[in-house]
């Protein structure tokens, strides 16, 4: 082709559906293969990888979720810290973390290498679960129970930072999770 080349503000005349140049064709092929790799990585990680935001997802009335959290606290409470109940649930159990303006309740005491089903929901507005300093982040919505199977793989004194804007005292919304041997 190419007895004439024009810029993008000129109307192409006649039939412009012409064959693609070799360099372009090679680049488009390589780019497309890369896109397929990008796509394949996600299902691959669902099968082989350990970190997927799948969870058990269901709707829940916020009042009902508050009740479940209260029952959970009653069952496994071992103490108090800064006015928040400290809860040490047995490995393998369902555990609850309630977000509400502007705190996370309760403080959780977990065992290293044990699996828990962590239920997250909000009593009022959108909140964000940010596990610090590990850097795992999940959206927390009122009306939805997001239950993630989690296995802490290191001991530590962790924080839960709210990372979704939830009103004027958003920055004070810091919770605590402790992982022990």
């Amino acid at each position, binding site marked *: 082709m190419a*007895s*004439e*080349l*024009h*810029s*993008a*503000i*000129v*109307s*192409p*005349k006649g039939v412009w559906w*012409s064959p693609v*140049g070799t*360099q*372009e064709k090679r*680049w*488009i092929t390589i780019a497309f293969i*890369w*896109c397929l790799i*990008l*796509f394949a990585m*996600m299902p691959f*990680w*669902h099968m082989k*990888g350990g*970190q*997927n*935001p*799948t969870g058990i*997802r269901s709707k829940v009335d916020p009042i009902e979720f508050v009740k479940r959290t209260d029952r959970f606290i009653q069952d496994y409470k071992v103490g108090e810290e*800064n006015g*928040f109940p400290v809860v040490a649930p047995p490995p393998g159990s369902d555990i609850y973390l309630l977000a509400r303006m502007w705190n996370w309740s309760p403080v959780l005491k977990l065992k290293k290498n044990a699996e828990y089903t962590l239920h*997250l929901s909000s009593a009022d*507005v959108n909140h964000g679960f*940010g*596990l610090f*300093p*590990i850097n*795992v*982040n*999940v*959206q927390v*919505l009122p*009306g*939805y129970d*997001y239950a993630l199977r*989690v*296995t802490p*793989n290191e001991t530590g004194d962790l*924080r839960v*930072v709210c*990372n*979704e*804007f939830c009103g*004027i005292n*958003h*920055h004070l919304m*810091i*919770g*605590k999770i402790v992982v022990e041997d």
Partner: protein
Amino acid sequence: MSDTLQSFAARFRKCPITGLSVDRSAELLIKVNAVVAVVTFLIGVLAALGLVLTRWQAIHLLDASMYYRFLTAHGLNMLIFFIIFFEMAVLYFAGPVVLNSRLPAPKMGWLAFLLMLAGAVLVNWMVFAGKADVLFTSYPPLKADPNYYLGIILFAVGALIVCGLFYASLAVAKKEKTYEGSMPLVTFGALTATIIAIISLLHGAIIYIPTWLWSMNLMPMDAQIYRLIWWGLGHSSQQINVAAMVSVWYLLAGLTVGGVVLNEKVSRTAFVLYVLFISMASAHHLLVDPGMGPAWKVWNTSYAMYLAVLASMIHGFTVPAGIEMGQRLRGFTHGTFEWLRKAPWGDPGFSGMVLSVIIFGFWGGITGVTIGTEQINLMAHNTMRIPGHFHVTVVGGTALAFMAVTYYVLPLIFQRRVAFWGMAKLQPYVFGIGITVMSMAMSFMGSFGVPRRHWDISGAQAPFHVEFHPAVDLLQAVFGIGGLAAAVGALMFIASAVVSVFFGKRVTEECIAKGLPGIPQGVLKLPSQTYKGSMVERTHKTGTPGTVVLVFIFLACFVLYYFVNWKLLSVLWKIG
């Protein structure tokens, strides 16, 4: 009959530089939309200064309520008002002006403009009056004053009308045969932008009208459904920017160095891929939400199979290759990179466009695809990596491209010489480098778990103490310095644009002949827009070796960044 002809003649002026007939009513609408765009941009920049100086914890300028108010104003004025007002100007340009035709129903254009202006004023009024401290996303159940939602609805209706006018002007131009052959690529790109705009704005209407009713307690609102549909507006509207920005790249490539379209089929197909797949990207915001399952997340976050990413990678080749080919046709044929070395780096229209391509592609594209991966998003969602990403796409990419094209709009449409020409030549560098430094610092802060949208990460007075990695302090300073540089670059642009529009010296044929300052080189001597003959054959055989080198450097960076992130993910807690 002759009356009609005369009134027609009076409607148009002949552009002495491009030879196009310019409809004066379209020209006036371009002017008012561009001026309001710059005003809203100024509000956004001033808000940005407050934000940078607050998140830089060592300064921590604003109190909490002012911080969130500024953040709301910054998001709305930058992401919605500035960009969409500017895009309206682009549509009036890419339709009637590029196609040499008249603008049908200019009164509708004014109605649309007034609706958009009323909407923007109402929203800003609500925000600064403290009646809408809900941030850009306004996720229910956080509630703003009903007039806030009403303002956005008015604005969206106005923008929809302009899209309709653009289609009408395409139909008129076709019917009245003001151009031969197919529409130019720039117009085609703008057409795809309007299709994406209509998809986005309809999502906006579908969600903001119920939310408006909800804010008056007339109906219930589900938090997850709001997020799902709202992002059909929130993310898709950023994809209008992508299509408009790529069109501006092609436009500036042609105007500045006579850049060519290597293959119309390839470039147009890439634009069509945007239309077909890009709106699925609203899923990027819902990857760690409880409402949707993994199959939905994987399919949508990947735009089917990354077909919109493929489109960007195609433009990422064809735009620089078109520039390289244009330069080679003008005689810069030595070695692999003479075309790049001898490019007009002192022309802000050219340098701004090239920086926009690099910043958007390298940093913006690579970070965006990576953090938009379903599982990797666990490490990125709502951290500073998110604004770190979109400040290089929307700001370093789109806003910078729009600034670059302004340096051509001023002489060609406003017929004014660019004021403070020496400063204007530097402006794209100051702005582009500033925003890149700022965004990189934000990205790294996010990797340390620093949340976005957060007034105070010191955790003072919180029930539990939180201590970020000491590197975060350093990153905050880098972020602050980059942000201030970007703000300076933005103010340089505003000063130059405003002074040119209101007090600029007129562009006359005489001052073009003399080559006086304030006129970019593509206007002084418009490069050839079509090339014919044996020279074309010879150059075409060489191809574009420089661009091939550049795109493979890009791909290597992409692969590296992507897999490093999977590696980082693999050591976290097991989650499933």
